């Protein structure tokens, strides 16, 4: 019982982080078919920005999060307009090579600026300590992560399901040519969606800095996890990656908790099996 609640709790917090980081990638791939392996770079940059603001300049937690969101969204929109946009419709290999190039460059730059070691994470005092749930207590910060994750997801889903922007985005994902022919500016739409997705990744990287350590190897170390969330969830879907993140979060936590001598081995095996069964993901369209 003790083990089960621990796995559920920590798995849920982990899943939230994975989802917030990866959901933007799902939209990028669903909308433009762009294989953006460098998505993790945006999460890493967000983490560096917020950790540095808090540790070095004493900026409050909430303001640091907001700054990292805006800063990374701006950087990503510049990159998208100048570089990514040239490769829409290019071959898969070219997109892969280009984004690997970005990963290598970003890793070297942050290594130069911040050094090779993982960044120390200082939690705000209001969010440290334990939270008593009656039957047992859990770390306060992880509880906050779960709550913040749910709030973000609710905002995102309302934004996509209930606003005009969301309706256009869904239309473009479903059928880009049709959306263009009824006058939707898909280029602008895509730039905005790209910036939003990168900003969310930055938030995920900042919030999850004590789960996924912020260091120069970040973008390659966790690449498989981000890609798996998207591949298993299905491209261009919002709900699919959420289910996939939950599966991955619970599965990975359970494996590391119950059979530490095998680590993530079974999670990878299960994910490969799942993709064999549904090659386009759980919620993807064939």
């Amino acid at each position, binding site marked *: 019982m003790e083990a089960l609640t621990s796995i559920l709790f920590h798995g849920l917090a982990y899943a939230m982080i994975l989802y917030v980081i990866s959901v933007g990638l799902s939209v990028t791939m669903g909308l433009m078919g762009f294989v953006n392996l460098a998505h993790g770079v945006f999460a890493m940059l967000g983490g560096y920005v917020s950790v540095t603001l808090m540790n070095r300049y004493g900026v409050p937690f909430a303001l640091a999060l907001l700054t990292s969101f805006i800063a990374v969204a701006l950087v990503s929109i510049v990159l998208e307009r100048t570089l990514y946009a040239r490769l829409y419709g290019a071959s898969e290999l070219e997109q892969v090579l280009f984004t690997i190039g*970005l990963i*290598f*460059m970003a890793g*070297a730059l942050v290594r130069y600026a911040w050094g090779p070691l993982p960044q120390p994470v200082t939690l705000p005092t209001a969010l440290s300590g334990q939270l008593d749930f009656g039957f047992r207590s859990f770390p306060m910060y992880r509880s906050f992560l779960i709550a913040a994750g749910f709030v973000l997801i609710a905002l995102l889903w309302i934004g996509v399901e209930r606003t005009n922007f969301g309706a256009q985005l869904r239309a473009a994902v479903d059928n880009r040519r049709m959306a263009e022919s009824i006058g939707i500016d898909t280029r602008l739409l895509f730039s905005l969606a790209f910036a939003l997705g990168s900003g969310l990744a930055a938030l995920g990287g900042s919030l999850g800095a004590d789960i996924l350590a912020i260091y120069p190897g970040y973008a390659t170390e966790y690449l498989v996890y981000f890609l798996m969330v998207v591949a298993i969830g299905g491209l261009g879907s919002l709900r699919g990656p959420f289910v996939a993140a939950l599966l991955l979060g619970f599965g990975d936590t359970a494996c590391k908790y119950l059979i530490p001598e095998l680590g993530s*081995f079974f999670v*990878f095996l299960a994910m490969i099996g799942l*993709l064999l069964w549904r*090659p386009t993901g759980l919620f993807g369209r064939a």
Partner: protein
Amino acid sequence: MASDRPVWASLIALFKQRAPADVSVVETLVRRHRLRAVELLPWILTVVAYYLFSDYLALGSQILIMILFALSLDLVLGYAGIVTLGHSAFFGVGAYAAGIYAARICGEPLSGLMVGATAAALVGWTSGLVILRTQGFTLLMLTLAVTALLAEAANKASFITGGADGLQGVDIAPIFGWFRFDMFGRVGYLYCLAVLFLCWLFARRLVHSPFGRSLIGIRENTARMHAIGSPVRRRLLTVYTISAALAGVAGALLAQTTQFVGLTVLGFQRSGEIVIMLVFGGVGRLYGAFVGASLYMIAQDQIAKLEPEFWNFWIGLLLVVLVMFARGGVLGLVDRVLSLARRKP
């Protein structure tokens, strides 16, 4: 007699008649297989390098090994068009298999190569059965996942692989019981060179065979190859297994010449680097591996001395520039310059 035949019969007879073979087409088809003088250049250079740079033979063997690794990737990526980011899986399996064989069972090097190749081919075949059912992004993801799976296995099974400390005690016996690996790396270099030469002969024969041509067909238009009855998936699985075996040989060579196997042989960095080397040299032309791997390794050796922290930055920048401006790699540029020079009278 001929006038007795109805008109349609003579028409059919006309069509049945073989057209006279176009001599120039046949000639070019035959010539493509023939060995050109230029193709001997890499071998002359490698032999010259043995005498000129006798202080750098350790680096030299590393380069030869990476050439073999890139060559194996070219079969899959360049000829069959399978975009993979998990080729280090087979390199790593070959290295670990050969290393463990040498440390635990027998230090004889040639059988060690066979062990590495067989283990990698087995992994290639089984993972290919799974991976090649998918396409595009899912396939790319699965190649990454298989490598991550193997890396985790090698990390956790430390009782046999040495885990994070690496595999110790790899002791290699003399080749044919006669040529002992020396501390200057002379025997190691020549050993790698001989193995690379044999693998190159094999790969060259393979890509010029009807099998190799059908791979190019699959790369260019998979639907049409299905339509003309080519067993597409079996072809892909075959070349994936062959490529895995060659990558396994490269890994085994690394294990034998450095007498050590670390977890990095299975890392993402190595998978990414080998794709970069191949693309830098030129994809799908067999010699891109030679050009790309040697330039990359020499540049890494030189630049890493000056500013090791920035090596990844320059490589990343190089990739971005390559994708944006020079998609054929170095050999593609050479082709372009040559065709420009030819056009001018």
